[in-house]
């Protein structure tokens, strides 16, 4: 999922300082799962905003609404009525949802979260990065562990000299991605894979912002 965390309330208040009526827009997608921007978090932020502003003697009206996914035009349409009745929007969706809502909104849309990474839920309250969305997956060569996301230097041909006792040179709290790859390939009896030289990568930035068009689907819709 896309993992995000709520921006501090002070930052949010700063962004909406000039306004008297705002919408706090939530998303039932990834940000609900990572407890940053679902219906519950929308309610909490809305209350915090109301309280802070009334304490300052500058009351504000806060509307709350959450839709299935802010990264999908079909669901964004549901915001139409509320968006046209407020002066600004605070979106608690990931950066994608925030931008897509902004594209469709006549009023300014502000980020209520910081979008962090593509990660997994390791335990209650713990998330960790697992994918870089590089566009050319090498997991078949590395025992299902991504060297780009898991190695602090995104090295493709083995660990740097800073790997020791299973940890990365950056911090004793960070596992060395290549130690993980080594251990996994050893367990799978595939250590030979480590000998392959992975060539310099095409980072797929040659066409600007990346897009995906699947003709068979677009035709179907027509």
């Amino acid at each position: 999922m896309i993992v995000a965390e709520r921006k501090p309330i002070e930052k949010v208040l700063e962004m909406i300082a000039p306004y008297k009526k705002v919408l706090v827009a939530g998303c039932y997608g990834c940000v609900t799962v990572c407890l940053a921007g679902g219906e519950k978090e929308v309610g909490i932020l809305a209350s915090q905003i109301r309280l802070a502003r009334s304490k300052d003697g500058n009351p504000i009206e806060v509307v709350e609404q959450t839709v299935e996914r802010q990264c999908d035009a079909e669901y964004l349409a549901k915001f139409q009525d509320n968006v046209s009745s407020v002066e600004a929007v605070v979106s608690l969706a990931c950066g994608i949802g925030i931008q897509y809502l902004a594209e469709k909104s006549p009023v300014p849309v502000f980020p209520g979260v910081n979008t962090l990474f593509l990660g997994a839920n390791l335990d209650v309250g713990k998330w960790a990065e697992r994918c870089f969305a590089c566009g050319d997956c090498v997991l078949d060569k590395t025992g299902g562990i991504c060297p780009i996301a898991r190695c602090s230097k995104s090295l493709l041909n083995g660990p740097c000299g800073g790997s020791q006792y299973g940890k990365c040179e950056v911090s004793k709290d960070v596992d060395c991605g290549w130690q993980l790859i080594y251990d996994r390939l050893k367990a799978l009896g595939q250590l030979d894979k480590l000998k392959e030289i992975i060539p310099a990568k095409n980072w797929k930035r040659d066409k600007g912002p990346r897009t995906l068009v699947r003709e068979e689907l677009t035709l179907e819709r027509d």
Partner: protein
Amino acid sequence: MKEIKFENLKSGSNLEKVLVSGQFACTGEIGPPTYASFEEIDKHAREMKGKVDAVNFTDNQTAVVRLSSWGASLRLIYEHGMEPNLQVVCRDRNRLAIQSDLLAAYAHGVRNVLCLSGDHQSFGNHPGCKSVYDVDSVQLINMLKRLRDDGCFECGAECKVNPKFFIGCAENPFGDPFEFRAIRLEKKIEAGADFVQTQCILDMERFELFMEKVRELGLHKRAFICAGLMPVKSPRMARYMQTGVPGMLVSEEFCQRLEKAEDPKAEAVNITVEYIKRCQQIEGVAGVHIMAVAWESIVPTVIEKAGLLPRPTF
């Protein structure tokens, strides 16, 4: 001195000639300053002149901004008539910038290049910077080999006057996974490394174990392996390196010798000289690389005491 006739040299560098002619190589290292002056480099260059076969210049070591390794290398060539070993890390430049810098470096006379990953930016003075790692060290080695041997850039396009570098790499016998270290070195040699300078050896037994693996794979016959050595001038620094530097192993004996010594600096020289002599006995070790971090001035003393003078000339 007997004239040696060289054939099929890859770069023709002095370091290559020393190694190819089977003589025990000896290189030094200068960490460029964090300010815009050659003063310190000039001082150390004068100290090392005639004492080493080439001088490494580190590339923003420990991710701290320093005078560039290519700038320092040119100074060594033009001002001192000495041979640099230009270090290049993958952290700060993409493949465009690296190839471009190296075309210029070659045109100016640089012949040795040492390819490295580079310390993570979190160690340095700009921890919030965006690192590059467009290519890793193995890919960088291969890029330079293709430039030299195939006359083409990484993209495949022709390079009309191709830089013919003596390509170096590092390997850390003290990092983990230990079983992978020699294999990783094999990958670097397969990718095109001609010579190797190891991470500094402060645990000789572990290094000997590493060299056993190297010999098992026959790597010492495919590339020249130079042992990295560091005179450590204080017991405190030795202890710090033992516990606080990731990827480093420092033997207890090493620390205790410095701690018990009346004159730790003199003992540091003694240990380094002993280690050089031990390295000369290890099959497959072709030379030593002395990196006296923040103590460059001691390099000539170490080399002299180890009996490595005079250095060969061609």
